[in-house]
């Protein structure tokens, strides 16, 4: 396979794998966080405002790691520097 095809294949495969694997662990962690929050809400409904706020902040922190994976996937698909460089080099070679 030539370099252009190799870059394309690896980019596409890794983009899919990044989102696939990267969203598994945050989902599990968020499930555990919500379960703990529900338990404490059932034990102390008076503190529901604090618990809810802390839950949302915690969920946002956990979600961040999934967002990092998503951003890497988007970069690989839409703003891939290696692909752009290879395309420019191939265009220059074809233009000569």
């Amino acid at each position: 396979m030539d370099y252009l095809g190799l870059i394309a294949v690896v980019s596409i495969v890794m983009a899919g794998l990044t989102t696939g694997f990267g969203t598994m662990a945050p989902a599990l962690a968020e499930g555990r966080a919500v379960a703990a929050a529900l338990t404490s809400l059932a034990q102390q409904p008076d503190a529901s405002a604090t618990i809810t706020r802390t839950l949302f902040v915690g969920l946002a922190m956990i979600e961040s790691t999934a967002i990092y994976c998503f951003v890497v996937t988007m970069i690989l698909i839409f703003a891939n520097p290696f692909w752009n460089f290879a395309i420019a080099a191939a265009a220059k070679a074809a233009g000569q």
Partner: protein
Amino acid sequence: MRLSPDELIFWQAGFFKLNATIMFTWALMLALALGSMLITRGLSKELTRSRWQNLLEIVVTAMAKQIEDIGLPNPRRYLPFLGTLFLFVALSSLSSVIPGFEPPTGSLSTTAALALCVFVAVPLFGVAELGLGGYLKSYIEPTFIMLPFNIISEVSRTLALAVRLFGNMMSGAMIVAILVSITPFLFPIVMTALGLLTGMVQAYIFSILAAVYIAAATHRNVPRKIDPSSSRLVAT
């Protein structure tokens, strides 16, 4: 497919580009400033108010109460900064219902700028509260070995703020764009509603995290004990 509103350029002169992000940011600034100016022109202290004044009062007092709950003892001092962060991000996300509007927070430039504002504001508030020596001393707490880790955590949480907001806003817009080309009628509307919800949550998260960082920077480590008459923690 466009990754961010940065790529839609209206006017260009050498290095300066007027792209969609800047235009939408200006539109939001105009809406916020003009709306607030118009509403606060005839403020009434009576029991009856106009509904717009009521709306602003609800928003401002709710934000002040949240800041106080975080642990910042004088919420009015931090309300301009944190309130502006929240209002800007929330309005940017809410306005995505206007057709043709793309949230400027869907561009890494805007979110990086907001995160840099927080990065600068945290030491400013810390020095204002604790003095320069006191604030710098907080970097070597609890032990001197923690100094590089504290510095790294400062930088990385700023980066996390920027990327979190950018990722959420950009993914919302992109999902809707992709779905419109696949199933045009029902799903894009559902996903737009979900994007509104996550936009409001992310606006809340951004400002609450900024408040938490400021509270950590202005936190005074004084020895405290429980006051027997009121059962609360007071300084010794």
